[in-house]
């Protein structure tokens, strides 16, 4: 066996130019059979673009791809699948009107492999695939009701059942819980045993060190140095390679909030969808963490509070007086209660609009002159300032948000929440898909907000994140509040406590 044949996939001098940006600039690396190859880099570095090129979504401007030592033109996705390249893209790509089995066995449909649909065989195949990723769902179920975590697992199940030789996973664990992520990593390891090569993208560096054999770092569309073996690196060094400078994590000290007034109080709130009553208190200037596994009911609870799902029982007090919020508009305009959704594509952004218009719509009051006319100068100023402080990577503020990288889209959602000067803010999964560096920036921003007296609820499935910034953590499970803990800022002890309250 010659040395060349060892590589199952070789990328040579890949360059990709989009109108206005050079997303990839002369990137090359090679992947051996049966290895887990991690791609890391900041938001907008070009990782997803690379995945798209390998999987045939679009072609490279320059450069070539070799599969099994043979140069291939991967002009469309089907071609990639034929070559044995399976993929889970960064964004969810399920067919809402299809049931689970059809979604999982989607490749059979799209390739027209089995001409007449054999429902039974398909169900069995789907069940096997779900078993592999630890999903316990019925194959004939619809998918519209599933939580984003479940949907993510479905996508992975779909990629698994493609029998691919190369599997591309673009941030597969961004929106799933720890247990699910563990399951996934286990599956990845098992696939590796079976000889499947995997390209793995994640901003969670712990995972990378857990499974990756080799690591390629991408910064501003270029690969930084050669591919490195995972064992030769540690976390700090990796971050330094990614960011281009030394990275310091800030720590936020515990504060004494006992004298602060309670600004938001929920007493036994429940809704039709979610009948278990729940209560909590939020103090002025406090950062309250809501921890829970995917599907624990945090998002739903938040929706009740902000008036989107009607409350059937219980009462909500803002600054001590009982309020009844009929719509989010009311919560937003009247009580300065602001919510940033975890679902940026559907609930956060106007993808066809440019960045500044996306920010402007939520800040109408700030950008209007006295006569009620919109000042685009003000709108652009505000947007520019957030582009700066959140280091949003875009040519300018007039590019369509659809063309931004996932992480940068998330940053715009955060900017939208920040620019309205709320009194209470609920941020749902603020750092999903955000690189380490910016994650720190966002934490800092949240902390600064709380210092200014704004109360923040951070919903997160990332224990480390909550331990880092929260003053208090509420733990959710199965639509119930299972416990409430003061944050000791010590990850080890906190996670044992939290796990304890979840298990109870």
């Amino acid at each position, binding site marked *: 066996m010659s040395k060349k044949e060892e590589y199952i996939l070789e990328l040579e001098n890949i360059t990709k*130019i*989009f*109108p*206005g*940006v*050079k997303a990839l*600039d002369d990137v090359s690396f090679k992947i051996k059979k049966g290895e887990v190859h991690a791609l890391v880099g900041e938001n907008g570095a070009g990782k997803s673009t690379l995945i798209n090129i390998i999987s045939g979504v679009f072609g490279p*401007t320059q450069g070539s791809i070799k599969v099994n030592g043979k140069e291939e033109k991967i002009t469309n996705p089907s071609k990639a699948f034929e070559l044995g390249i399976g993929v889970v893209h960064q964004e969810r790509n399920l067919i809402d009107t299809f049931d689970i089995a059809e979604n999982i066995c989607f490749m059979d449909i799209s390739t027209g492999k089995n001409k007449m649909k054999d429902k039974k065989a398909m169900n069995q195949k789907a069940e096997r695939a779900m078993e592999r990723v630890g999903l316990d769902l019925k194959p004939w179920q619809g998918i519209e009701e599933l939580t984003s975590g479940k949907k993510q697992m479905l996508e992975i199940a779909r990629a698994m059942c493609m029998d691919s030789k190369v599997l591309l996973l673009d941030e597969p664990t961004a929106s799933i819980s720890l247990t699910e992520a563990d399951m996934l990593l286990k599956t990845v390891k098992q696939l590796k045993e079976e000889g499947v090569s995997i390209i793995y993208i994640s901003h969670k560096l712990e995972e990378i060190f857990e499974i990756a054999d080799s690591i390629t770092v991408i910064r501003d569309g270029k690969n930084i140095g050669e591919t490195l073996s995972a064992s030769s690196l540690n976390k700090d060094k990796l971050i330094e390679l990614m960011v281009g400078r030394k990275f310091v994590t800030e720590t936020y000290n515990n504060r004494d909030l006992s004298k602060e007034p309670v600004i938001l109080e929920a007493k036994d709130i429940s809704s039709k969808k979610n009948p278990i009553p729940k209560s909590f208190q939020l103090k002025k200037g406090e950062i309250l963490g809501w921890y829970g596994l995917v599907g624990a009911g945090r998002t739903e609870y938040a929706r009740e509070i902000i008036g*989107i799902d009607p409350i059937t029982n219980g009462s909500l007090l803002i600054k001590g007086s009982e309020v009844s919020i009929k*719509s*989010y*508009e009311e919560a*937003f*305009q009247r009580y300065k209660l*602001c*919510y940033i*959704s975890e679902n940026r594509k*559907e*609930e*956060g*952004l*106007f*993808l*066809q*609009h440019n960045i500044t*218009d996306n920010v*402007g*719509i*939520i800040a*109408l009051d700030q950008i*209007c002159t006295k006569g*009620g*006319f*919109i000042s685009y100068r003000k709108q652009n100023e505000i947007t520019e300032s957030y582009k700066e402080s959140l280091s949003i990577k875009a040519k300018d503020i007039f590019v369509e948000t659809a063309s931004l990288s996932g992480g940068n889209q998330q940053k715009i959602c955060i900017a*939208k929440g920040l620019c*309205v000067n709320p009194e209470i803010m609920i941020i749902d999964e603020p750092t999903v898909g955000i690189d380490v560096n910016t994650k720190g920036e966002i934490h800092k921003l949240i902390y600064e907000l709380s210092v200014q007296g704004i109360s923040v609820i951070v919903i997160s499935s990332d224990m480390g994140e909550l331990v880092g910034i929260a003053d208090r953590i509420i733990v959710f499970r199965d639509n119930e509040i299972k416990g409430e803990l003061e944050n000791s800022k010590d990850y080890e002890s906190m996670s044992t406590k939290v796990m304890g309250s979840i298990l109870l």
Partner: protein
Amino acid sequence: MKRIKQLLQADLSSVIIPIITIFGLLAITSEGFLSSYNMFSIFQSVPIFVIVGLAQMIVLSLGQMNLAVGSIGVLSSVVFGIAMQNLGMPTSVSILLACIAGVLQGLIQGVMVTKSGINPFIISLALLSLYKGLALVITKGQPFSELNAGFSAFGNLKIVGLFPATIFIAALVSGIMYVLIRYRKLGKRLLACGANGVAAIYSGVNYDKTVIIGHAISGGLCAIAAILQVSRFGSVQLSIGDDWMLTSFVVPVLGGTLLSGGKVNVIGTFLGGFLMVLINNAIVLWGVSSYATNAAVGLILLLAYEVDRMRKKMMNNQAKSAVEKEA
């Protein structure tokens, strides 16, 4: 050369370039084209096209369609006719009542679309029949022709011997719509609801209210168009609006409005109306059989997409090569 390139890239180029081309060709090939009679006639047709186009545009901006533009026009003009002819109201009051009627019809449509949960397309379809039917039942098909003479004269009034008075109304309405869409909160909210309704709600926009207002404005614009049409015809005609539906889509689309919602172009719509009228004029002046009118309009529409595609491609290429040069 660079200038031309820049012009080709401007947002409005896909409507301005055809206008200039057709205008130039007509001026060269057809001696009657620049006559004051013809110019006046062209300008006289523009207002209805533009305002009906705007009425559709505002609903398109919400990502919906208003199939009932014509019917709203008829029923509003019937209200106008009743007010003026049967009740002897002064012109201004009659106009006001007609506009109120239009707004009301739009309002009903908006409320049904947002609150009933019935498929918006079907609602619009049903209201199309319902409004027209109501107009027929009220009038038994009879036109109103005893209108205020001054009002009828207005529709055919010449200013500076060239411009019909109505074109100024259209310009005014377009101006107001431009400001509304671009510089008022409402405009931003409309576009937000059209681009992504859920995200709009999460941005603190009252979705239902915005959609209802959008439909109401659309209804009001239909009424204005109907009144202008009445003043041109000198009578309230039950067939007013029968031919509006296609126009209402073609005009804003020629002008660069995105049918999926979220992006509109008021100036483009104005120019789109002008382009439509020019095309129609060219067909007659060039002696193309009117059997071919339809084919020509269709081809021009296809051509407009092609120009738009070319423009985008050119912009992309240029942006790409700019990146390459930088490197």
